[in-house]
């Protein structure tokens, strides 16, 4: 009996120690990435290539989902606001929810599953096929050459993707609310402009999405770098990337929101 309890406790302890260990390694990995970022700025083409694979290739999914999220917001918002006779506030509802929350968060979740998983698989396979060791052998630092450009590519792409998501979403809300249902166009835009503040809402959304971009890419790169060099190891690492970066995005969103919007309006 006592033996069983001890075994359970031991397993729990091992798990906790393991996760603290991994968290520490990931933090060390993050600082190493920052430390070796100098190469990126001397050779910007490395970063541009990563912006292509992280940002440009995510464009379709971001634009299409942005449009549909905005259209759904327009429909649902109209249904609810209509009962209070204030359907002119539809513009505020669509714009604020997109710019403050849905834009950065949903775009980051899509980014994690579209670009983050690809990064993990790529780095994991590079390690499995010993390309990373080959780089080290040629005295090229793999963190400076492989990891840092991907990190900066993610940090730069993410705010642009989130802004495109929000803009598409507002356009979708406009399509459904004004064109389809017939909310007054002037009220839609003017109430939106009166309620959305550049610094409080839009700039905070941009900061949020840059942080999310950093969080997702660090997790994706670390998982790839840390993956056991087997087919199974890479597949597990890819799954872990999507799960833990999605959780990290939501947790960071709560932390950032509680700092940014405390007491504001």
């Amino acid at each position: 009996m006592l033996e069983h309890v001890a075994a359970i406790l031991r397993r729990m302890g091992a798990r906790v120690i393991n996760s603290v260990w991994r968290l520490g390694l990931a933090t060390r990995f993050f600082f190493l990435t920052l430390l070796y970022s100098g190469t990126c700025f001397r050779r910007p083409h490395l970063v541009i290539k990563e912006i292509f694979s992280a940002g440009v290739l995510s464009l379709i999914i971001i634009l299409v989902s942005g449009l549909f999220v905005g259209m759904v917001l327009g429909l649902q918002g109209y249904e609810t606001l209509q009962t209070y006779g204030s359907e002119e506030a539809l513009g505020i509802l669509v714009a604020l929810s997109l710019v403050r929350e849905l834009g950065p968060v949903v775009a980051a979740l899509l980014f994690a599953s579209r670009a983050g998983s690809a990064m993990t698989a790529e780095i994991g396979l590079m390690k499995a096929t010993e390309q990373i060791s080959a780089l080290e052998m040629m005295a090229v630092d793999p963190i400076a050459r492989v990891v840092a450009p991907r990190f900066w590519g993610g940090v730069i792409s993410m705010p642009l993707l989130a802004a495109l998501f929000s803009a598409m979403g507002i356009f979708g809300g406009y399509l459904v609310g004004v064109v389809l249902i017939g909310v007054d166009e002037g009220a839609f835009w003017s109430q939106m402009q009166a309620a959305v503040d550049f610094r409080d809402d839009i700039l905070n959304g941009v900061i949020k999405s840059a942080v999310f971009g950093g969080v997702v890419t660090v997790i994706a790169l670390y998982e790839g770098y840390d993956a056991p060099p087997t087919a199974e190891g890479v597949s597990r690492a890819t799954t872990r990337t999507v799960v833990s970066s999605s959780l990290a995005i939501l947790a960071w969103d709560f932390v950032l929101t509680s700092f940014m919007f405390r007491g504001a309006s």
Partner: protein
Amino acid sequence: MSMKKTTLDLWVGVFVAAGLGALLFLALRVGSFSAFETAKTYTIQAAFENIGGLKVRAPVKSAGVVVGRVVDIRFDNTTYEAIVSMQLGSQYKFPTDTSAAIMTSGLLGEQYVALDAGGSDRMLSNGDTLRITQGAVVLENLIGKFLFNKAEEGGVGAQEEGSAP
């Protein structure tokens, strides 16, 4: 990796331009762009008996035009009144005997401060306090007064009826 360097550069350029365009759209068309407002402002205060649901950043309007924003609301421990600080654009000048009232836009809308210009020759400057104010109308008080008046009317009526015969 078969993609040529120039094509890749072109696509990244298109992506970055589109992203910045979206940001510009958000800033200009969706937002009100207050971060780049360099217009000068001055701050005035007003004491209200009751501010109702007035919040910081609520608009200050005169004749329906937004002339400023509420920047601070605090409670005065000696007079037991709410001190509302308002930031007005310095292109808007108001006489010193201007009155302030807290109004509601629509039945359930947001509350704002309405300024009603007076007739004095001297103009308000930074740090001045408005003398004439009218607090928010609290719906419960209004209903209470209405019921009280009704009851009073009823009471008077009953007395009259009683004294008639």
